[in-house]
């Protein structure tokens, strides 16, 4: 594994003003995550998990501190550069799948690729590969409303994979799924981590899901309260 960590947070804080009250979703948080890791991010609702994920994925910027991901200091990038950086390096998987309802599975997966300098054929190859990995090669031309929740989430994962990012950020990806579909999704994420070497951070409340990870981080009120290495017993 690469010596340099893929993610490094240096004394990161995030602050919101809500009326008179200040909300500190993240408070002076430092953290490193290694390349190829599979991290479960846990904690009660409102503890700052999503905020942390958004900072790492360059969707949001910290109030203080520095965020380094894939060797790039995100705090130095403009909004435009961040958008561009995102399509090359990270991909999000959401609890609500967040597919575009007017597009077919194929088109949804293709969407992020349209931002990259690829030919039609290259795009097609990427899309087919990604949909093959998630096992949906037979659902290319279905719209989201013609798919089950588990299938929708798999399309969303394929979309995340399409541009071949190093880092996958999943925010409660199994939260809306039944137990069976959730297991399938988790198995898929494990495969992506083991076989394809993706670094994965997954936000979850489910201990079973967390047990799959190499490492569990517990957040509470914006502060890391527990950092468990589960690699030995989990494997």
């Amino acid at each position, binding site marked *: 594994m690469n010596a340099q960590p893929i993610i490094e947070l240096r004394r990161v804080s995030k602050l919101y003003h809500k009326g008179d009250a200040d909300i500190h979703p993240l408070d002076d948080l430092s953290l490193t995550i290694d390349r190829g890791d599979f991290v479960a991010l846990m904690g009660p609702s409102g503890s700052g998990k999503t905020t942390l994920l958004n900072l790492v994925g360059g969707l949001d910027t910290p109030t203080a501190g520095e965020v380094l991901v894939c060797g790039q200091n995100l705090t130095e990038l403009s909004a435009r550069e961040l958008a561009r950086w995102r399509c090359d390096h990270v991909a999000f998987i959401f609890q609500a799948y967040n*597919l*575009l309802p007017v597009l077919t599975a194929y088109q949804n997966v293709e969407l992020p690729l349209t*931002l990259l300098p690829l030919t039609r054929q290259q795009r097609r190859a990427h899309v087919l590969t990604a949909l093959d990995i998630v096992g949906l090669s037979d659902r290319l031309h279905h719209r989201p409303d013609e798919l089950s929740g588990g299938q929708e989430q798999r399309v969303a994962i394929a*979309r995340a994979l399409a541009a071949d990012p190093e880092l996958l950020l999943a925010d409660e990806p199994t939260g809306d799924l039944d137990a069976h579909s959730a297991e399938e999704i988790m198995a898929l994420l494990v495969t992506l981590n083991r076989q394809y070497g993706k670094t994965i951070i997954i936000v979850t409340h489910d201990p079973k899901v967390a047990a799959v990870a190499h490492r569990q981080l517990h957040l509470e009120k914006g502060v890391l309260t527990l950092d468990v290495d589960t690699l030995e017993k989990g494997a």
Partner: protein
Amino acid sequence: MRLLLLNLTRKPLRTLLTIFGVGVALLLFCFLETVLNAFNAGVNMADASRLFVQHKESIIFELPMAYRQLIAQTEGVTGVATACWFGALSQEPGSDGKKREEFFAQFATDIEDYLRLYPEVQVPPDQLAELLSDQMGCLLGAKIAQRLGKRVGDRLVLRSTIWTQRDGSSIWEFNVRAIYTTDSPTFDQTMMLFPFKRFDEARQFGQGSVGLYMLSIDDPGRSGEISSVIDARFANSPYETRTMTEKAFNLQFVGMLGNFQLLLRSIGTAVVLTMIGTAVVLTMLLVSANTMMMSARERTREMGILKAIGFTDGHVFLLLIGEALVLSLLGALAGVGLAWLLANVLHFNPKPDFFPVFYLPQESILAAVGVAAVTGLVSGIVPAVTAMRLKATEALRSV
């Protein structure tokens, strides 16, 4: 780009309604433009390279025929034709068998001189030869010929409200010898011309006088100068002249016909139509603006997704503006297309006798498309800017 088009298919009904709205608004707009254009056509068909000479006081007074020679000698004048307004009504039996009087423009004129003055008027050579060899002949515009159901060789009976024949009769008979057409969209195709010679010999009074001299000049830029020279030439004579451009003449002519009432009613109608049109355009604009804002609100989340995937604020802006533009331009295509089809291809004319010239001018088409584009931009700009400013994290939070 494909996303843009696909988004439009998401709510087909709403998309269609919006297109329909913009379409109807622009159809009305175009109709209005066509009508207004028809009002102005008489004025527009005028050419600054042509001058009209009439009696100084009014068109109802006549000028001596001897002036023709003097006017023709004026420096800068390249051609002269004489003309008298005939002011007659057609005497054709209508479909119900009763006599139907129809009003249209007739002039007694030197046909050959007239055609030299108006090269845009086309007459088939064989018909022209027939016309020139028949004292009783007349030349009809293609449109009025069609309206009266006349063909070459038919007889045409008119009742003049001004001129009586020597026997005191106001009924005049003609043989339709030729029919003219023109490529000029503004040239009136509902006129009737007949030889001045026959008119002058047959009329009971006024022999040797002319209502109007029409001239062509060598340089439109000198129309003012040449007019002054002519009018100065006849100053202090018993028949002083007033020379003006064809355009100015047509303007006063409309008024002199005694059609003030018609004119006022037409203007009134035009104003009302304009108001209705404006109201409709505004309503449609609001409706479509609202539609687009609504759809953007619903789609806040999707814009968040796009941004999370790596779309920049600029992409999102263009996407929404593009959608609004495509919608309104599709509407324009429908509305303007239909109007164009009606006016320019099917020649649908609600009042052919009021509007001898009825078509949708190109500028109006451009204006309509412009209105549509502006509508699109205006209605798209708010949601587009909102979506652009929106932060992905906020958008995704709003479930």
